[in-house]
């Protein structure tokens, strides 16, 4: 039986304008049926890798991409007013998938965390569908936009306690929580205090999107959490190509930030009200109701009714 989450074969899904990226099977060499289980990529812990990436924002060089072998135009689709020209390059994607994950791992190691970068992100995966739908809950993004965003993301798995972002560290990578829970922590003298929970679709590392150089919050994994990591440079390139989508993404992040601010403010308000001896607002009393016919009959039988 065919796995519904498994992408269709290239023969079943030819590359057309409606599919900006070729299916993953097409970008990778076929694996033997009983291929040995590959261990996950090693955690990158060095600050600077062999490619010469540094942690200084803005100084990160781009990897030289191989020559393209194919490209197609999406402008005929009608959804893009900016003349988006999506480049689906067979060899390009195949090598980029490796290069990108390496870059994200290097950036993450130098910036904040040491999670395992384990795969690419494809828009038809279950957690990707859920995460992107939750991220763009206000204004749903088009398939093309989601595919473009997924193309610059790398799947990353973190264990409880591992940090996604560290306050004051260079903001090189942003994360979209795909599954599991993360926690925003406030720095305290004794122990970190949980400020807000991040779930599927929540954005961690808003500094990457806003253009700030350093992260403003500590965010750690509260459970086994899968995140989609995207690099600052890739996001900026995407924003230049698709300004409407970038605006929608920023809107979503503002709303998420606003939700957390509201939560913190409510907590502080409760503390202050208790300290000042102000009575909490009593819950609204239920409105009087005559009840159902069975209820009225029961009340009549038991003699409690009017």
């Amino acid at each position: 039986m065919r796995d519904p989450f498994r992408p269709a074969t290239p023969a079943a899904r030819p590359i057309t304008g409606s599919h900006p990226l070729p299916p993953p099977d097409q970008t990778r060499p076929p694996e033997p049926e009983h291929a040995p289980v590959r261990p996950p990529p090693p955690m990158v812990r060095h600050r600077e890798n062999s490619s010469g990436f540094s942690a200084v924002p803005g100084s990160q060089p781009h990897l030289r991409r191989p020559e393209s072998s194919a490209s197609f135009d999406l402008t005929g689709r009608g959804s893009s007013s900016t003349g988006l020209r999506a480049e689906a390059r067979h060899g390009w994607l195949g090598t980029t998938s490796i290069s990108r994950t390496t870059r994200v791992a290097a950036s993450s190691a130098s910036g904040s965390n040491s999670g395992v970068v384990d795969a690419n992100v494809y828009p038809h995966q279950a957690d990707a569908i859920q995460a992107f739908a939750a991220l763009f809950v206000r204004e749903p993004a088009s398939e093309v936009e989601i595919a473009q965003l997924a193309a610059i993301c790398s799947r990353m798995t973190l264990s409880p306690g591992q940090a996604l972002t560290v306050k004051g560290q260079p903001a090189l990578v942003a994360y979209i929580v795909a599954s599991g829970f993360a926690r925003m922590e406030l720095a305290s003298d004794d122990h970190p205090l949980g400020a807000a929970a991040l779930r599927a679709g929540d954005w961690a590392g808003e500094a990457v999107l806003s253009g700030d150089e350093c992260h403003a919050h500590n965010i750690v994994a509260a459970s086994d959490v899968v995140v989609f990591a995207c690099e600052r440079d890739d996001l900026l390139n995407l924003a230049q190509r698709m300004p409407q989508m970038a605006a929608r993404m920023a809107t979503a992040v503002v709303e998420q930030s606003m939700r957390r601010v509201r939560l913190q403010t409510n907590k502080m308000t409760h503390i202050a009200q208790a300290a000042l001896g102000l009575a909490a607002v009593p819950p609204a009393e239920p409105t009087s109701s005559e009840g159902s016919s069975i209820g009225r009959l029961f009340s009549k039988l038991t003699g409690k009714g009017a």
Partner: protein
Amino acid sequence: MNVQQLRALPGWQRVTDAEGTGLVQAGGDRWIRAGQAVVEAGKPCVGPQLIASGEVQVLFEVADMGLAVVVLGPGDWIAPESAFDNTPPILGARALSDTRTLALPREQVERLRTMPQGVAVRLTRTLLQSQSKIAAALGEHAAPWLQRAHDKRQLSRADLTDLGMQRLVQPTQAVPMAGGQPASKQVEIIGHEGPAIAANFRPIR
């Protein structure tokens, strides 16, 4: 405000004439005297306001006490959340100095966000920057608050003062007058930090 003045603000240096004109014409200038409230917490707000000049203090207020969260300056947005949300703002804002803002109604924000030019990106990005600034500053204050609440079951007014809250309203001393002063003539001063300015008076009922 005009496009040249807009270009002088952080985050808007590279705005084109068309984008800048569109933004400036979508909003309206507003002048606020030092000490006046720019945004009142819990009260309806038409939309975000871009600070063109002056300084504005964001305040967390409970009853008669307030906590200065952060000071915003030119290029920052006041009440950035009101761009997307109809609910009243949870944090108030008060002008520290004479301030000029560009008030952008929520409907205009929605219209600008759908425009194909880069103004949508600039607008949302600068809104995000201001929101992040406020959120980060509030986080700095929230940490000791939560820590104190965790350590001590019941906080007192002194604890709140220790945590940075200040009393906003100070009743005036009864002024001795010949023949006494009728209660209807008593006033209270809306206190504020900073240099002396003309105070607001209102009768105590």
